[in-house]
């Protein structure tokens, strides 16, 4: 006899699951109709196919929206009979973190991605005009793939997707607790597992939507590039693709930086960037998309570099899919601190990647002879030539990062099972990428001074004298007065740091000069220069913050273990015990742990730590401030995260 369960709310789950299936199914005719619209010779026939495709897409978009709202309803109403709510949320969570619960799980973040595709797709149906059919066919196909991740049904004994609306009792059929009809009344079901404390941070509310918006945007230039190959209008897609690619780069870049801000606050690796595989996986597509934008501009003004533009936009989306595979297949388990866990969808993710990669690359190879390119070679004194070089440098960076990030993939190759990431991953990446940064910084400052096609000899150097001279003076000044003397990795690396310092200052100064000398101060035309100044500032900021990073909370007393000493270039005694009320010397400061407070219902403890800068214990402090670090403290152990919050706040 079937048990009648009491107290469940089954309707939201049924609605959600139903519409997840509707979204998946509706995206199939949308794809097919749009594809037929591309193939149809007759204008009227093509038009009617296109309209059909459009309606299919609208239905799928509306369904995705319903699924999205339903899942949020379940989480926000604490319906813990649903596994998703049970696993990712709890009653004590503040309202704003309920959204973070939404995207903590794989299903929720797929849904978020799918949601942005839907929004962007609907906008595109209004704005793409003659490119609608091929572009939307590609996006609809992506929605078929994404939709399949959320349906959670069996097709030919293969479990397709993961249903976010699954009930706890169905996921754990054997568990004794779910044999009781009244299981909802039991204590166990009263509250959920809660959100991972690392994700209980306001950046986790805003970072994933922005990042996934960036992810979703990468399909647009890809779809345009594929549309160009498909319709054999090899050059026509360039113009509409440019603003959309720029928007995507902005969103993805913002998402990455928000992730860095979150890592800085929540993770304990003491910084905003650790070359973690998950971080790399979103940085690499950004690099290739930026490269694509630059070759696109080169093509627009000179006719060169069309093939590379195709390549960069195609590879960008392929890399997005690859990074999705890396972060969601569970393959990164041993190497990353924050990859998703395996849901058994690796196969499906690989298929998703293949569906887009193989036809796109195949078309590019097949039509590569037909893609127009000028007979005449570009001049070494032309802007397009150096844009091309710069894009290749970005590609080199992308290849190196991908190569090292993919170690868990290489492990699957017989004979390489024991391969592990470098034991010092940060330095491993830094020592290579610093050269990339140097070249990019210099090119960023230089290229705008070159003219398209050809530049009269001698004029460039004259214009560059001032910014070069100024940058050199500024670099020397910063080195001398800012005491940049990072020697942890020897003098060779320090020289590279000096070079990068110069390159990033030159990127800023060069572009600043160009706004006045090249553009005569017309700010409306200065978008690129301003973006480049920003890029230069990022390089400069990264450089200074990493080379000047200093841990203050070194424990100089303690037990000498003589193991991690100077010559092993590791100082592991980074934690200092702060007894309450007793000033302890920490770098130039005397630090006193004044007290802490916590409140019922708030898992955090708040600390008061006073800093006084003075040469010795008795002297009059020259500087005084108080920091209020907080930490999630485990009630059972009562352990405090001692000096760690302080040292993070004080790293620079």
């Amino acid at each position: 006899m079937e048990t009648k369960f009491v107290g469940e709310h089954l309707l939201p789950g049924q609605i959600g699951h139903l519409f997840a299936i509707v979204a998946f199914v509706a995206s199939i005719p949308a794809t097919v109709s749009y594809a037929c619209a591309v193939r149809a010779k007759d204008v009227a026939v093509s038009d009617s196919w296109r309209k059909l495709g459009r309606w299919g897409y609208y239905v799928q978009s509306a369904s995705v929206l319903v699924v999205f709202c339903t899942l949020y309803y379940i989480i926000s109403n604490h319906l813990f009979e649903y596994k998703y709510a049970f696993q990712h949320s709890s009653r004590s969570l503040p309202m704003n973190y309920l959204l973070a619960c939404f995207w903590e799980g794989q299903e929720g973040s797929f849904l978020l991605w799918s949601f942005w595709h839907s929004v962007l797709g609907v906008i595109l149906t209004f704005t793409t005009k003659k490119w609608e059919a091929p572009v939307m066919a590609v996006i609809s196909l992506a929605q078929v793939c994404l939709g399949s991740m959320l349906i959670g049904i069996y097709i030919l004994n293969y479990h397709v997707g993961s249903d976010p609306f699954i009930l706890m009792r169905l996921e754990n059929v054997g568990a004794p607790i779910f044999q009781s009809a009244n299981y909802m009344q039991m204590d166990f079901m009263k509250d959920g597992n809660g959100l991972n404390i690392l994700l209980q941070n306001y950046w986790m509310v805003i970072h994933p939507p922005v990042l996934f918006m960036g992810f979703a945007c990468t399909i647009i230039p890809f779809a345009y590039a594929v549309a160009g190959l498909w319709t054999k209008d090899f050059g026509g897609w360039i113009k509409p693709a440019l603003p959309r690619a720029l928007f995507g780069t902005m969103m993805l870049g913002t998402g990455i930086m928000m992730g860095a801000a979150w890592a800085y606050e929540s993770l304990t690796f003491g910084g905003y960037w650790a070359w973690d595989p998950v971080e790399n996986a979103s940085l690499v597509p950004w690099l290739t998309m930026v490269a694509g934008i630059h070759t696109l501009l080169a093509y627009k003004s000179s006719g060169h570099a069309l093939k590379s533009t195709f390549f960069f936009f195609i590879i960008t989306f392929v890399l997005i899919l690859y990074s999705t595979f890396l972060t969601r297949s569970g393959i990164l388990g041993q190497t990353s601190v924050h990859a998703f866990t395996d849901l058994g969808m690796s196969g499906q993710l690989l298929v998703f990647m293949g569906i887009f990669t193989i036809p796109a690359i195949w078309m590019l190879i097949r039509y590569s002879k037909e893609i127009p390119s000028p007979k005449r070679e570009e001049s070494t004194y032309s802007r397009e030539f150096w844009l091309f070089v710069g894009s290749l440098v970005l590609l080199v960076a992308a290849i190196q990062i991908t190569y090292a990030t993919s170690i868990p993939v290489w492990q699957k190759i017989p004979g390489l099972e024991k391969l592990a990431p470098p034991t010092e991953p940060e330095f491993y990446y830094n020592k290579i990428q610093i050269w990339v940064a140097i070249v990019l910084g210099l090119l960023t400052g230089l290229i705008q001074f070159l003219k398209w096609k050809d530049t009269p000899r001698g004029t460039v150097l004259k214009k560059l004298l001032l910014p070069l001279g100024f940058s050199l003076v500024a670099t020397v000044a910063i080195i001398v007065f800012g005491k940049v003397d990072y020697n942890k990795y020897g003098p060779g690396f320090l020289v590279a740091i000096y070079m990068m310092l110069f390159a990033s200052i030159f990127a800023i100064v060069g572009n600043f000069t160009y706004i006045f000398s090249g553009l005569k101060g017309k700010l409306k035309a200065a978008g690129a220069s301003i973006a480049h100044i920003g890029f230069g500032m990022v390089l400069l900021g990264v450089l200074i913050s990493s080379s000047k990073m200093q841990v203050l909370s070194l424990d100089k007393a303690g037990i000498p273990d003589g193991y991690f000493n100077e010559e092993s270039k590791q100082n592991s005694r980074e934690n200092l015990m702060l007894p309450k009320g007793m000033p302890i010397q920490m770098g130039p400061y005397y630090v006193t742990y004044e007290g802490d407070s916590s409140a019922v219902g708030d898992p955090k403890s708040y600390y008061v730590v006073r800093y006084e800068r003075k040469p010795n214990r008795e002297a009059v402090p020259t500087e005084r401030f108080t920091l209020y670090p907080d930490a999630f403290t485990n009630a059972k152990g009562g352990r405090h995260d001692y000096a760690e919050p302080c040292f993070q706040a004080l790293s620079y």
Partner: protein
Amino acid sequence: MKKTNIVLLVMIAACVAALVMTIGDFGTYETFATASAKEGKMYHVVGALDTTKEMHYDAQKDANHFTFYMKDKSGEIRKVIYNGTRPTDFDKSTELVLTGKMKNGEFYCNKILMKCPSKYKDQQTASSGRSV
């Protein structure tokens, strides 16, 4: 030959050179046995916390000294010394990836990556990687 092709070749050469030259920087996953065969070399060792043996951490005495025992994949149990604070929820971890080196039969590690099960079933969350 076109200039762009030359540039392309130079870049490819640079790539290959960079990749080949740095391949030696890659680590390997080893067991305690291989790590003790080459004392002083950095290795990653995968294993699980031995809960039957004692864990020791006393911040009052030394905030940078945490010791525990880990059983590696081959079943060998060794004492591990970590120069840092005890990670939160350490005893709940199901798998540990340690980065460090062997010295006098003890494993000195400077980085712990641990995996913890969530309260429910086989769901796992990787957390708390900390390098020194």
